[in-house]
């Protein structure tokens, strides 16, 4: 038992160092904040919009190394998640997003608070086709794993889907961050990346368990992943909720 724990800790030290190096290299700066906003619908962000995006990125990237180290310490995590491959990166990003959205649920501390006078819902941030694509991909993967008797893989896919839907729900629920344009961009990114990542798990697990026809499954899920996490085609200046 002790030797198993020691092995797990030893196994985690290398990735921890790698994670910390990655954290330093990838630590978001203003340039990345501008890029994120430009990609998600705020083409020329103002100076006061950028720090909100940088804080959004930092909240996530700070968590990645710790999750990368922590997840393998969970008993049998490597067996279920497929070792240290691409799959584990997908899970780290997914759980990082979940924790960041949970932290974002706190009410801001400043005395002056703003809110939009319009209801908001999931479809304001994740179009219906992204939800349908996500359900189809998850359903197909679970059915495929079930037919092959790969119940742990099916459970992991369902778990990843549940986490991604929780992230979508939390991204709609949390208080506003920044002005309406920035807020829309960040909520949209959170929702769509989470949906895309849960689709990504189906592909990575398909590879790990060697499910036939793995190649087509990976190809299809990669296409779905790219389509879902792709930002909206046209830059927008107003929120859907305001229409």
């Amino acid at each position, binding site marked *: 038992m002790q030797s198993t724990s020691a092995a797990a800790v030893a196994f985690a030290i290398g990735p921890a160092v790698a994670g910390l190096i990655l954290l330093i290299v990838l630590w978001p700066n203003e340039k990345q904040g501008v890029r994120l906003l430009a990609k998600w619908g705020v083409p020329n962000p103002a100076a006061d919009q950028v720090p909100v995006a940088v804080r959004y990125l930092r909240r996530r990237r700070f968590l990645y190394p710790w999750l990368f180290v922590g997840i393998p310490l969970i008993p049998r995590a490597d067996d279920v998640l497929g070792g240290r491959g691409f799959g584990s990166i997908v899970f780290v990003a997914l759980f990082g997003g979940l924790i960041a959205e949970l932290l974002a649920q706190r009410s801001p501390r400043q005395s*002056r608070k*703003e*809110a939009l006078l319009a209801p*908001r819902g999931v479809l304001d941030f994740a179009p219906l086709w992204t939800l349908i694509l996500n359900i189809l991909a998850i359903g197909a993967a679970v059915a495929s794993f079930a037919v092959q008797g790969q119940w742990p893989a099916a459970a992991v896919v369902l778990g990843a889907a549940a986490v991604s839907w929780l992230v979508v729900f939390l991204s709609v629920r*949390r208080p506003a961050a920044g002005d309406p344009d920035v807020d829309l961009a960040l909520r949209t990114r959170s929702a769509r990346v989470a949906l895309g990542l849960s689709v990504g798990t189906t592909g990575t697990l398909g590879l790990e368990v060697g499910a036939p026809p793995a190649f087509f499954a990976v190809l299809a899920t990669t296409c779905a992943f790219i389509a879902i996490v792709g930002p909206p085609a046209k830059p927008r200046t107003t929120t859907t909720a305001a229409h």
Partner: protein
Amino acid sequence: MPLRVVVDAENGISPWRQVHDQIIHAITTGSLPRDARLPPIRQLSRDLGLASGTIARVYRELEAAGWVATARAKGTTVTGPADRPDPATLLHRAAAEYARHSRGLGATPDATVDAVRVALANLDAPVQ
């Protein structure tokens, strides 16, 4: 531009009154048109960091005054009073609100009127 409501905990006016007055202002100026949907109580209370009972009170008061209606399926929507107040009525209503606030601050009637004159002068002053 999406319509926003702002609550400042340090401006001396109760949060529910701030939300209430801003919604009425938005309806009377047409920023919130008839049939526009207001956010659910929970959403607005979370966003503004207020208790849901506070926003529920705002919606209740607005509904009692005929500004909004709440239906299970549609949520809370703007109805506006059957006869929308004319500008003179709105002016008197705003004046009454200001007078109440001024008295709450302990200002004398003269100081209250002087503050309005200063505010009007500032509106007319050229922007620097």
